[in-house]
């Protein structure tokens, strides 16, 4: 028996409430983040990711308090993302009880920030979030590009090369969201997941598009991801964590049951 693949429920939090947008627009309320985190911990989630999707500076304090409240009760790893732009932001979240922070846009605009963060706090707590969209190429080969601002702004950066660069700069893990699939529940983009997972030595979390339990299995088996992140299939009671874990284990994926 080796390392278990991880299931990571994701809490998208807006103004202190868990919400889940469909392609970052439609918002449904899924409850109090502390309650939701506690429920997932009790169910046997392997980690929890907290994404602050408001991320405007006036809500910062609410986020810090929520992270503190979760960290006081939940004894599994907690990643916090959304609006992490400075070393001070990282320190604030780690002091509030986060175990890792997820850096997204700030890495795109200033890759050296990833190096600085990793040197200061250690690679183990630096997750780089990559939002990738498939773009067609004249010769027909698959290519994925990094997008920012909820998938609206292309950057011209190749997603696979970018992931390798982030690893070199000291990222400890990649959180890969395939943007065109996010919230529409057609499954992860297995092509980009596999391409990146095979191109880097650090763990890769597949995110964006999990709509059923087969998608989770596919993310690991076909996409070669080390962990799968999902939100709405768990938030709205479609599936529980133990059910998902058993389903994956029955299909040969090593899980912590």
């Amino acid at each position, binding site marked *: 028996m080796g390392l278990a693949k991880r299931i990571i429920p994701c809490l998208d939090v807006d103004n202190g409430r868990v919400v889940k947008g469909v392609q970052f627009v439609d918002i449904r309320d899924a409850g109090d983040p502390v309650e939701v985190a506690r429920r997932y911990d009790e169910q046997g989630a392997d980690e929890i990711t907290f994404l602050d999707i408001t991320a405007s500076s006036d809500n910062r304090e609410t986020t810090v308090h929520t992270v503190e409240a979760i960290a006081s009760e939940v004894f*599994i790893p907690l990643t916090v993302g959304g609006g992490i732009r400075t070393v001070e932001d990282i320190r604030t979240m780690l002091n509030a009880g986060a175990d890792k922070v997820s850096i997204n846009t700030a890495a795109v605009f200033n890759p050296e920030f990833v190096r600085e963060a990793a040197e200061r706090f250690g690679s183990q707590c630096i997750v780089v979030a990559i939002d990738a969209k498939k773009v067609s190429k004249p010769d027909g080969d698959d290519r994925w590009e990094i997008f920012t601002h909820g998938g609206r702004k292309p950057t011209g950066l190749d997603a696979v090369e970018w992931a390798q660069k982030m690893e070199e700069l000291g990222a400890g893990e990649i959180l890969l969201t395939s943007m065109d699939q996010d919230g529409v529940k057609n499954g992860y983009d297995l092509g980009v997941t596999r391409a990146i997972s095979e191109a880097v030595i650090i*763990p890769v979390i597949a995110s964006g598009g999990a709509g059923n339990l087969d998608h989770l299995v596919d993310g690991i088996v076909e996409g070669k991801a080390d962990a799968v992140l999902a939100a709405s299939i768990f938030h709205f009671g479609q599936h529980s964590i133990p059910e998902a874990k058993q389903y994956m284990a029955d299909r040969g994926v090593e899980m912590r049951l």
Partner: protein
Amino acid sequence: MHTVAVIDYGMGNLHSAAKALEHVAPDGMKVLVTSDADVIRKADRVVLPGVGAIRDCMAEIRRLGVDDLVREVVKTKPLLGICVGMQVLLDHSEENGGVDCIGLLPGNVRYFGRELYENDQHLKVPHMGWSQVTQSDHPLWNGIKDESRFYFVHSYYAQCEERELVAGTCQYGVQLDAALTKDNLFAVQFHPEKSAKAGLQLLSNFLRWNP
């Protein structure tokens, strides 16, 4: 009043360890996150956490005299090392071009390397996630099933030269020492404070351990 001191030498996140200890502490026991040598000397138990690069950890440990303090307190009270707080207890680490450590446990800390395989599978580094730990008989495992999974995150691993000091092992491309013990000292590579029920049980056992 009974106290457990979590040694704060300025390296990263002590909140998790302190919160988890508070969660399982018996009534009347206080958890103190501190760098004050007197508070640490007076504590009933001591926890040495650690994250990040070992060179920076050891530099701060030496600057604050934590190395001598650890050598002193471990003679009389239970001490728990966690993650890099375990690694610094060995003689030497390969990380950062080679760093001399505290040397309470004989052995070295080695890099997994980029060519790490198990059953023909290329393994990711860092070793991040839940792995099984094979236990040796020790009171800190009370109430925890052998082969239970704990949460690991590390790129370097301990190899103790005296195998009778190994209290737990883990397989990840190599066989690594997941737990080491010697007299009053118990040290773990994984994060008990992040390992759900099994981890909380181990911390609870530590707070009630009388070696």
